């Protein structure tokens, strides 16, 4: 979660839920702390950017990523963080732009994109992304040609999406880590060109 939540009613509600689970013998405080620490120390868009840069430089990996996102993520050491859902990589091309949303809540692959930004969880983004994506993208400063087809992927069920942005022109000489640093969290969501 982004921002501070200590003072919000939701923090108290979450704590009450935790206490109920502990009282029922389903979990312990130590287990909750351990899970949160693992999630928030390792979850980062740097991970998604590494996957994208590797796909840009290794055609075989790109194919494996598009065919089976979970296996491809595991290949780079992100298997543990991407369990429990179907990871789908969706690739931008000059003709197609992909963007992701969760209209029902705020799902996305946190291990690869980091904690979701507050706008991703907002009612405005969740309702408008599926209705008028071109206008939403323009507000993010991304003006796409009318000829570009836009595909909006709603993570309403058990699939989690990672957008593979277009590699910038003139980057042939860049190594993988330089390429990875050109990829932003918004690029992985599809609200930036990369």
């Amino acid at each position, binding site marked *: 979660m982004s921002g501070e939540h200590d003072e919000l009613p939701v923090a108290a509600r979450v704590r009450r839920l935790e206490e109920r689970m502990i009282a029922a013998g389903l979990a312990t405080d130590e287990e909750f702390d351990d899970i949160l620490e693992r999630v928030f120390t390792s979850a980062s868009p740097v991970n998604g950017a590494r996957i994208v840069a590797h796909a840009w430089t290794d055609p075989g990996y790109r194919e494996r990523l598009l065919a089976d996102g979970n296996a491809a993520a595991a290949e780079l050491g992100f298997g543990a963080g991407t369990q429990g859902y179907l990871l789908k990589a969706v690739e931008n091309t000059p003709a197609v732009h992909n963007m992701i949303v969760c209209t029902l809540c705020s799902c996305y692959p946190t291990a690869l994109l980091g904690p979701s930004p507050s706008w991703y969880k907002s009612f405005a983004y969740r309702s408008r992304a599926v209705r008028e994506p071109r206008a939403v993208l323009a507000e993010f400063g991304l003006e796409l040609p009318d000829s570009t087809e836009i595909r*909006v992927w709603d993570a309403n*069920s*058990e699939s989690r999406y990672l957008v593979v942005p277009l590699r910038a022109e003139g980057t042939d000489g860049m190594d993988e880590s330089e390429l990875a640093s050109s990829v932003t969290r918004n690029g992985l969501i599809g609200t930036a060109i990369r």
Partner: protein
Amino acid sequence: MTRFGAGARVRARVADPDGHTRLPRYACGHTGQVVEARGTWQLPDEAVHGVFRSEPVYAVRFDAAELWGSGSHSVILDLWESYLEEAP
């Protein structure tokens, strides 16, 4: 065993149930095309009541014009088999 193959025309159930569902209301009653099967997953509508039954899930693509009456983009959702029927 999956009921729908890639390319099948399907319609999302019209009714919006009282309880929990992962069928967003904006897709209810609309017709789309199966992109691919996405494996078998527990049906959340029943799981919230303690009934654990798995069903095939499909990625289904809807044209914006079908969902909203305008627009040129498409929206892809994952939908459980019991959310879907063959398109009329």
